[in-house]
């Protein structure tokens, strides 16, 4: 066949119009990338030598160490501790090769960007998903195989060696799953790190954000592992890792796109641009001259309305926390019925506590700063936890509230005084807290799924602008009002209710 004929044949393949590929085709295309990357990794001695050493030499070293420790424990009559300690080493043996996945991931993503070999790949019909999936699999497969091999060698030496160790199958499953999820967290985290950098050096510096938490997690897993009766907690850790992977994949899939990968030319902070975006979002479409009424109407309220979904999530979590607190009251009863309603000492204490606020109006400031501190911490932690900590911190008092109210009800006491001690300021305070938590939740989670037309940094800066806007425009005024009510009105209502 001539070139012309060949080109004619090829053209029929180059003019396909289907934009959406089937999952099978997506996987096939992803595997084309994976095969190339894996082959490339296998040819790189900088990757293969450590994998080889960690896969074959380290398990043998670990076996020798185990033999020494076993002898030491047996000599000192502590052989009963061995079943608790033996599973530790396979975890470590599995973790070291898997940590290479981080290096491979950084290399395949940033390294390729640095060597400029990414652009020809981005110019092909491969979709972002295929590229992301192919490269993620490539970063995971060799280290995971090495890790499983290392674990098999080590566990095999324990099972067949002098120790004659007979681990429960579920323990082996746990170790293998923990190793796999650790690799997944590291690789998906590395994709996120890679997208934010243009050099391997910068990526390696940022990789500490992955390796440090993973090392801490390993320590936590080890402390759980040595207590066989607590090993069920490892399942929770796995669930936590799966959630983290889902969030990281969501984030990675969104930011692993051609625009982000090639548009990011510098690792430097563009403060001017950042300020411009933040300020633009904070002000909103209010025109040249700032006008407070217009700001509320055109900027603040639309933002509050845009927080509908996170607000709903926060409300659901608060209700769940309240319900959990209520349910736990059954388990840990406080014998409130033992307190006497006419106990003079208690009533005196209550009177003096109620009078405290009236004599010390500066407690308003205390109540306000207390709420602000909590919300500031929740927002700050939300940034580093995809918004999760905002929910946890804000939900905790509601759990306590549910617990206390349930105690009151279970003790046969009237819940009314308790309710009146919360409601007068609560009706203002709770909406403020819910709104603040919703803004913090969005601030933390927006990086996992920025709007289509925005880069991650722009989406985050706009979410920050929204959080500050809602904070200044709605939350702060409500909290001031709540603090005033809490110190001046609530005590009087309680006094009235109790007839003091």
């Amino acid at each position, binding site marked *: *066949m001539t*070139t*012309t004929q*060949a*080109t004619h*044949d*090829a*053209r029929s*393949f*180059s*003019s*396909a*119009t*289907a*934009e959406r*590929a089937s999952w099978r085709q997506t996987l096939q*295309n992803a595997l*084309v990338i994976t095969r*190339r990357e894996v082959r*490339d990794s296998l*040819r*790189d001695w900088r990757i293969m030598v450590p994998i080889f050493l960690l896969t074959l030499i380290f398990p043998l070293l670990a076996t020798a160490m185990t033999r020494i420790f076993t002898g030491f424990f047996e000599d000192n009559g502590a052989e009963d501790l061995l079943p608790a300690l033996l599973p530790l080493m396979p975890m470590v043996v599995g973790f070291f090769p898997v940590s290479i996945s981080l290096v491979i991931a950084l290399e395949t993503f940033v390294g390729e960007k640095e*060597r*400029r*070999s*990414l*652009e*020809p*790949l*981005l*110019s*092909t*019909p*491969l*979709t972002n998903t295929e590229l992301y999936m192919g490269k993620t699999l490539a970063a995971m497969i060799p280290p995971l195989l090495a890790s499983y091999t290392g674990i098999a060698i080590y566990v095999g030496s324990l099972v067949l060696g002098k120790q004659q160790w007979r681990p429960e199958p579920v323990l082996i499953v746990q170790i293998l799953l923990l190793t796999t999820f650790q690799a997944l967290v590291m690789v998906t985290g590395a994709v996120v790190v890679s997208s934010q950098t243009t050099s391997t050096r910068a990526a390696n510096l940022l990789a500490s954000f992955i390796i440090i938490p993973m090392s801490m997690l390993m320590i936590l897993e080890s402390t759980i592992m040595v207590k066989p009766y607590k090993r069920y907690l490892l399942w929770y850790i796995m669930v936590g890792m799966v959630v983290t992977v889902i969030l990281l994949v969501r984030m990675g899939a969104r930011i692993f796109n*051609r*625009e982000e990968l*090639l*548009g990011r*030319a510098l690792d430097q902070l*563009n403060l*001017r*641009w950042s300020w*411009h975006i933040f300020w633009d979002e904070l002000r909103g479409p209010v025109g040249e001259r700032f006008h407070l009424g217009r700001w509320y109407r055109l900027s603040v309220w639309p933002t509050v309305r845009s927080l509908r979904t996170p607000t709903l999530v926060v409300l659901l979590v608060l209700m769940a926390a309240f319900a959990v607190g209520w349910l736990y009251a059954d388990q840990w009863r406080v014998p409130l019925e033992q307190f006497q309603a006419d106990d003079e000492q208690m009533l005196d204490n209550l009177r003096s506590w109620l009078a405290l606020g009236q004599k010390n109006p500066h407690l308003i400031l205390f109540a306000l700063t207390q709420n602000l501190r909590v919300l500031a911490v929740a927002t700050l932690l939300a940034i580093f936890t995809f918004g999760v900590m905002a929910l946890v911190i804000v939900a905790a008092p509601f759990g306590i509230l549910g617990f206390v109210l349930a105690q009151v009800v279970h003790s046969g006491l009237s819940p009314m005084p308790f309710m009146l001690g919360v409601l007068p300021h609560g009706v203002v305070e709770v909406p403020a807290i819910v709104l603040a938590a919703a803004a913090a939740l969005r601030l933390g989670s927006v990086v996992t799924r920025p709007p289509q037309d925005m880069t991650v940094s722009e989406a985050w800066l706009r979410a920050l602008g929204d959080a500050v806007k809602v904070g200044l425009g709605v939350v702060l005024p409500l909290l001031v009002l709540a603090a005033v009510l809490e110190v001046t009105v609530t005590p009087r209502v309680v006094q009235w209710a109790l007839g003091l």
Partner: protein
Amino acid sequence: MIEAHELTKDFKGFRAVDHISFAVKQGTIFAILGPNGAGKTTTVRMLTSILKPSAGWARVAGYDVVKQPTAVRRSVGVLTEQHGLYERMRGMEYLDFFTRIYRLPPELRTRRPLELMERFGLGDALEKRLGEYSKGMKQKLALVRAMLHDPPVLLLDEPTSAMDPQSAKLVRDTIKELRRAERTVAITTHNLTEAQELADRIAVIRQGRIIAMGTFEELSRRFVGEPIMELRLTQHLNGAAEELRGMVQIVAQGEDWLRYRTSAPQRTNPQVIRKLTGAGLEIVTLSEVSQTLEDIYLQIVAEDEGAHMEEHA
């Protein structure tokens, strides 16, 4: 085959491409010229659906670059500014990787790379690792990669940079061959001689804007004026120049030669010849003084710079 309308690309705080519009017909070669940082690469990246335009639209091979990115990328072959080859792979292995990505049928997966490699004189380098390729060989391999799936549109960034003259000629001939095969080619280049030789239409881009566009002749006429003719005689002019002054605008003269500018050489040149031969003078040659694209390009950029400074003032 390629259409761009008011295409714009903003990055953080600056506009890389500013409302550019152009159209490239099927079977023609379009050259985009401009200094470094002018927006050429960003334009090509938008045309390959790698970057999303901030405003405007573009269609490549009939597909919208925003709505049908996969179809666009399937229809274009791209030679990127940096070759970006995988140095540990072998030539044939590298091309096989791309034939799979482009989903070429199995029977073409070997034949097509072999044909192209042979055409570019890389037949002996099929099993060599790409790290061992010379710069020129890498450039040719990158071009093979771009042509692998025989796309109807080729976007070539500096196609002959780093090549020896023989290889550069081979590549230029291939590009001309592509035009004959009704492929549409857009090249960005700093090599003005190459652009002049290859391009049917030329666009000069500066600070993200197209500041001039047209065929070489159109640009030449617009920016360096009407054609200049050179006349050589066997003997001294002997005052003939004075007689011609009424007919044409003489721009330079020597003892036995002169140069004149004319807007209509078809009409003027026979008159000049008649006049001189009538006066008994013998003409050796009458030819057009060739304007180079470099002259035109420099003039275009200088004019734009002047206009820009005036605007600021």
